[in-house]
């Protein structure tokens, strides 16, 4: 099953986001070995050069590291993973706030809406 990619945005960025999500959600555990570039490209139905580029970027950010002969692995630095999670959450929240402002909702209303929604969700569980 090819990955669900939006061809109007650079593919390598979407691969990076996808791998980040897989690390955060625990699909990839710290220290796990990644499949080869070719296998991943095949799975995602993308060009191997694009996959290579995405993995190089992830390597640069430290989230994955490569060992010359045995392949690529997910970082074991839990602090780094936690940091990335916080950054992604912050980005989601500021996008949300910007959206709400567009709808003309005041900061006070945003707080109230958020509190209500969270409370509802908690009651459901």
């Amino acid at each position, binding site marked *: 099953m*090819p990955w669900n*990619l*939006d*061809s*109007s*945005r*650079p*593919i*390598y960025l979407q691969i990076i986001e996808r791998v980040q999500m897989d690390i955060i959600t625990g699909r990839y555990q710290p220290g796990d070995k990644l499949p080869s570039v*070719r296998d991943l*490209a*095949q799975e995602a*139905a*993308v*060009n*191997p*050069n*694009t996959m290579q*580029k995405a993995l190089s970027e992830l390597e640069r950010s430290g989230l994955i590291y490569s060992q010359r002969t045995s392949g690529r692995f997910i970082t074991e630095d839990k602090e780094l993973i936690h940091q990335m999670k916080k950054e992604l959450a912050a980005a989601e929240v500021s996008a949300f706030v910007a959206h709400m402002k567009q709808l003309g909702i005041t900061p006070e209303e945003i707080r109230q809406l958020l509190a209500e929604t969270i409370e509802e969700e908690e009651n459901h569980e």
Partner: protein
Amino acid sequence: MSELVTCKDLTKRFGNHTALDHLNLSLDSGKIIGLLGPNGSGKTTLLKLLNGLLTPSEGEVLIAGNHPGIETKRIVSYLPDKMYLGSWMRVSDLLTYYSDFFEDFDMSRANAMLESLKISPKDRLKTMSKGTKEKVQLILTMSRRAKLYCLDEPIAGVDPAARDYILSTILNNYEPDASILISTHLISDVENILDEVIFIQEGQLKLHASVEDIRMQEGESIDSYFREVFKC
């Protein structure tokens, strides 16, 4: 990464119609390149020139430093836009035919693909549907271990599910130092596997760029960018 294909002022005239007009182009090895353009823009003419089926009216084309000929046919695997195989032939005949002709033909690769697409080696071409014939031709083309694959409309008659299989076969089977030049109108189906695109219009090069750069700069897919550039 080395230069695999070079076109210098490549021109082809048919009578007083100019199909290719001083085209300058260079393609590196290790890339999957989409050759895109409206109908009659010169895509098939360019592929035929690369394969020595046509000779240039002006300018030249070089593949790994050679003019099209025996040396280049050894390393270029070509899928024409028309059926070129005898319709009386069985798939098994075609396999022998191809392995006689091309020393880089990989029989086991061909058999594996035929099996995945449930095509029996005993079937004759004339009993097959249009789409199945296209699959057979593409399998033959992709089963060579070539340096350059020229695919002219490879997936036009094939159903969407087989299209996905064929694209993954293309990804799977090409060596990292080989290049694939694909001419197609089905841009959205192929664009995720492309490195670069070439837009040609009325025989002239309009654009040669990396697909990720286009997505980055234009904020749209290659499919919608094509529609914008070639709006009628």
